[in-house]
């Protein structure tokens, strides 16, 4: 079946610009997560949605980062006034809505490069 789909796969933009990264989760997965993976490091949690609402946004680094999931399926991560330090691979994952024992299924990520 279809896995988690992330678009675009690569995004290059200039410092100060606005970017949107899209995540289409596995059908039926109500839990959705965003992570950021900097070069040579493990992924770091950004935000978690259960349905349409952000249940935990404690990982968002500052108010330039925002994410939505208006219909409980596709999610968009939005970054305003991008900085060079935002360059990273942004990973999306989804899982079934049960307890934490449900494994998260990851997309291939969006590689964001800020020039």
């Amino acid at each position, binding site marked *: 079946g279809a896995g*988690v789909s*992330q678009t675009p796969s690569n995004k290059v933009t200039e410092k100060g610009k606005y970017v949107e990264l899209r995540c289409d989760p596995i059908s039926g997965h109500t*839990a959705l*997560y965003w*992570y950021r993976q900097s070069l*040579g*490091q*493990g*992924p*770091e*949690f950004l935000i*978690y949605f*259960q349905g349409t609402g952000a*249940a*935990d946004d404690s*990982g968002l680094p500052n108010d330039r980062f925002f994410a939505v999931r208006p219909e409980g399926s596709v999610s968009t991560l939005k970054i305003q006034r991008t900085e060079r330090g935002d360059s990273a691979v942004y*990973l999306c*994952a989804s899982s079934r*809505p*049960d*307890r*934490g*024992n449900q*494994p*998260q*299924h*990851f*997309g*291939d*990520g969006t590689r964001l490069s800020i020039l």
Partner: protein
Amino acid sequence: AQSVTQLDSQVPVFEEAPVELRCNYSSSVSVYLFWYVQYPNQGLQLLLKYLSGSTLVKGINGFEAEFNKSQTSFHLRKPSVHISDTAEYFCAVSGLSAGNKLTFGGGTRVLVKP
């Protein structure tokens, strides 16, 4: 708060040799434990998970891991590696509640040499 330490950033190994990747965690609450593999330019793929029960967990591609609660470790092993096992491996933990975020270690890069 939880943290994960992967003690080796890189592990070179010859084809058909065994490999062990070390993972230690710290947590004030009970956790679930996971190992993920990441091939170049791809997302993470689940290798195996420990939820409860037997402390020896078998996963895909011939990998297994052993949970040791007293040592707070979850080391990953494979008795005989293939060239195709060249990848980055991440150990991760999560809490027991619904929607608990994963906390990852820094990763171990495995390079299998012919």
